[in-house]
């Protein structure tokens, strides 16, 4: 029962703050709401038993990315200035589109997804396990993506520096 | 190394040589040597061919060779020549040779011009020596693409438009052609794309032929200026630089007739029989229509382009008559038209280079200031309107006599219609000659023009000599072609 309660609390948090994040007039607030959403997502991971993901989500997203965001906002935004949005007509169109998509996907989920509510028990995932999976090339082992990501990260670092560097 | 491959190799070596040269003099040396080698090669080939035939070799193609170059689709590089190809190779060599001299002072970017020019020659030579459908198609494309750049960069007038138009229409044609060729290959059940083998198997179902014959014929027909698809020709020729006009009208348009004959009719005789009447009407229209169209033009190149439509129409017309005489005439007409139209374009280029106009209304009395060019123009005109002892006459007469041998009224009425074109041709040729070559000088500035210089004289004289040679001694070339036409006609009559 506790699980349900926690889930619904998190669900409400995520829903409300994601909507607020995209409708807020001040960009710094949007960023803050986004942070809450990310934290809520981390909570969901924890709820599902993926502790490692929870940690990564907090560290990378809430820690790393959000800091970047806030720096960027502070660098580019004059304080107190509101974020410009599109014309009302376009907002209405966008809203309707989103709602249509929502309804459509909701329809699919409601009618097509089997209602699985049983969470089979799962052994804890140990760091050793994760490490081994990440370091092998067999089936269910992810060395190649891992290395790809590492190269990507490197490229990003270099790229980001190159792009943002003052000439 | 097969003897015939040298024809493709020489232009390749020419390109290498061009890459290595730094100034105009070197470029021209390379081009002249290459073109002369090609001339020598074609003369040698003719000699070898004729001796081989005289020795009693009755094979359909001589000097055959075959190498696989793309096994998964059975694409071979297979070469071989018969009398028709030999005639076409001679023609190509003459035109390439004279084309080099006609573009002696090409500007700007001479190096690039000659590179593309050589590439074009590769396509042309390759097309005529190969017997593999796909390789043939490849060379065909190689010959088409440089045209775009040659016209687009070195052309005059609305060159971008014309280049685009020409390339797109010819590419459209080659799209049809590709479908046709693949259709032939897959429905013939042959194991190679060699057209001799496909012809020997001769088992393309008639229903399939009904689809692929029109596609192939029209695909080649576009290049041969078949009636509703001829409009690239006036614009393209009008904008192209001299040597390109020469090569294009002189040789490239022959690819159309040659291909239509070698591929479409040879491989799909049943459909050819069934559908000949449609195309006969179209080509009959071409012949008369092109001639009438030429009367009204005022730009020299347009006049000549329409005249080409008329004359090339006669080529396809004669091919479709499907008898030995008419077809021999068609091949001879290709030769003759190639020579005289190249001469025309060369002369027009030279005149344009002096007067800076091609509008016949603005010129007059050029004979007085440019006697050499004037006389040559008159000779070209006379060849075009079919004066005996010049090449046009023998070709046209062979076509007319051949076409008239049909027993049914349809073919003969069409022949008479085509005959009427000789009068219309006379009208527009004389109109031009009377206006620009004869008559009083129209423009004061023209009085100071200078006559042809040595390289122009070389180009013009070679062509004139060729025209005279073919016109006065047609027997050997007629018999060389006539013998080679027999297998194809045999296929058609079967």
């Amino acid at each position, binding site marked *: 029962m506790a699980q349900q309660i926690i889930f619904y609390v998190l669900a409400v948090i995520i829903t409300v703050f994601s909507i607020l994040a995209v409708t807020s007039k001040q*960009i710094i607030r949007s960023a803050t709401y986004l942070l809450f959403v990310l934290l809520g997502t981390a909570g969901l991971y924890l709820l599902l038993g993926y502790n490692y993901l929870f940690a990564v989500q907090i560290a990378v997203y809430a820690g790393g990315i959000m800091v970047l965001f806030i720096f960027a906002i502070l660098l580019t935004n004059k304080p107190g200035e509101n974020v410009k949005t599109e014309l009302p007509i376009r907002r209405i169109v966008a809203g309707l589109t989103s709602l249509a998509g929502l309804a459509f996907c909701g329809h699919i989920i409601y009618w097509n997804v089997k209602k699985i509510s049983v969470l089979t028990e799962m052994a804890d995932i140990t760091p050793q396990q994760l490490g081994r999976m990440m370091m092998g090339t067999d089936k269910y082992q992810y060395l190649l993506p891992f290395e790809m990501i590492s190269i990507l990260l490197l490229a990003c670092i270099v790229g980001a520096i190159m792009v943002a560097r003052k000439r | 190394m097969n003897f015939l491959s040298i024809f493709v190799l020489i232009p390749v070596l020419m390109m290498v040589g061009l890459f290595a040269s730094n100034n105009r003099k070197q470029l021209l040396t390379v081009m002249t040597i290459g073109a002369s080698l090609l001339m020598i090669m074609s003369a040698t080939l003719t000699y070898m061919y004729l001796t081989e035939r005289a020795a009693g070799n009755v094979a359909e193609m001589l000097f055959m060779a075959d190498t696989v170059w793309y096994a998964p689709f059975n694409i071979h590089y297979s070469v071989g020549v018969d009398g028709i190809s030999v005639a076409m190779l001679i023609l190509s060599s003459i035109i390439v040779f004279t084309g080099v001299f006609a573009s002696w002072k090409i500007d700007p970017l001479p190096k690039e011009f000659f590179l593309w020019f050589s590439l074009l020659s590769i396509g042309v030579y390759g097309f005529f020596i190969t017997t593999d459908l796909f390789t043939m198609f490849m060379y065909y494309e190689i010959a088409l693409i440089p045209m775009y750049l040659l016209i687009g960069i070195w052309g005059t007038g609305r060159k971008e438009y014309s280049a685009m138009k020409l390339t797109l229409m010819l590419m459209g044609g080659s799209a049809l052609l590709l479908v046709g060729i693949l259709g032939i290959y897959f429905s013939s059940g042959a194991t190679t794309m060699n057209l001799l083998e496909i012809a020997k198997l001769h088992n393309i179902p008639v229903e399939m032929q009904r689809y692929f014959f029109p596609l192939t014929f029209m695909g080649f027909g576009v290049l041969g200026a078949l009636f509703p698809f001829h409009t690239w020709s006036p614009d393209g020729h009008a904008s192209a630089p001299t040597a390109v006009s020469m090569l294009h009208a002189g040789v490239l348009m022959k690819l159309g007739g040659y291909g239509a004959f070698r591929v479409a009719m040879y491989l799909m005789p049943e459909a050819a029989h069934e559908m000949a009447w449609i195309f006969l009407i179209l080509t009959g229209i071409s012949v008369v229509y092109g001639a009438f169209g030429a009367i009204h033009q005022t730009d020299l190149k347009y006049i000549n382009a329409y005249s080409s439509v008329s004359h090339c129409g006669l080529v396809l017309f004669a091919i479709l008559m499907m008898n030995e005489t008419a077809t021999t005439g068609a091949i001879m007409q290709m030769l003759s038209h190639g020579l005289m139209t190249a001469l025309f374009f060369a002369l027009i280029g030279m005149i344009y280079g002096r007067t800076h106009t091609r509008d016949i209304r603005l010129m007059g009395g050029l004979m007085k200031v440019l006697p050499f060019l004037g006389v040559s123009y008159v000779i070209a005109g006379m060849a075009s309107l079919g004066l005996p002892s010049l090449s046009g006459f023998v070709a046209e007469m062979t076509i007319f006599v051949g076409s008239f041998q049909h027993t049914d009224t349809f073919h003969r009425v069409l022949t008479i219609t085509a005959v009427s074109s000789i009068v219309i041709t006379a009208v527009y040729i004389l109109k031009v000659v009377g206006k620009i070559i004869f008559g009083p000088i129209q423009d004061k500035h023209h009085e100071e023009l200078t006559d042809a210089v040595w390289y122009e004289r070389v180009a013009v004289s070679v062509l004139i000599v060729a025209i005279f040679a073919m016109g006065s001694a047609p027997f050997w070339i007629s018999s060389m072609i006539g013998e080679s036409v027999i297998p194809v006609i045999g296929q058609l009559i079967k």
Partner: protein
Amino acid sequence: MEFLTSFFSGPVPVEAYLAVSLIMFFAGVYGFLTRKSMLMILVSIELMLNAADINFVAFNRYLYPGQFEGFYFTLFTIAIAACETAVAIAIIINIYRNLTSVEVGNLDQMKE
């Protein structure tokens, strides 16, 4: 009603996760479509990415509890999101330097 009661009565079904991610995703879509600021667009993208992550994880957990495809996918997505954000923000700052604006409407100038 039955749907709502089943939400609250039994254990949490997979649809509940899906519903949350769905709302999050379309919130992202809405933001993406309505905002002019590139930073806000980036925020919306992060929302959508997160929504996708939740789906991966939820399906992985409910349908294939013993396997880790969804898990790793999410993990890598997070890493990629980090890269993407870093580069994007670098670009945005650079653009801001040149145009003193971070609005997408002005970016046409780059086409010329």
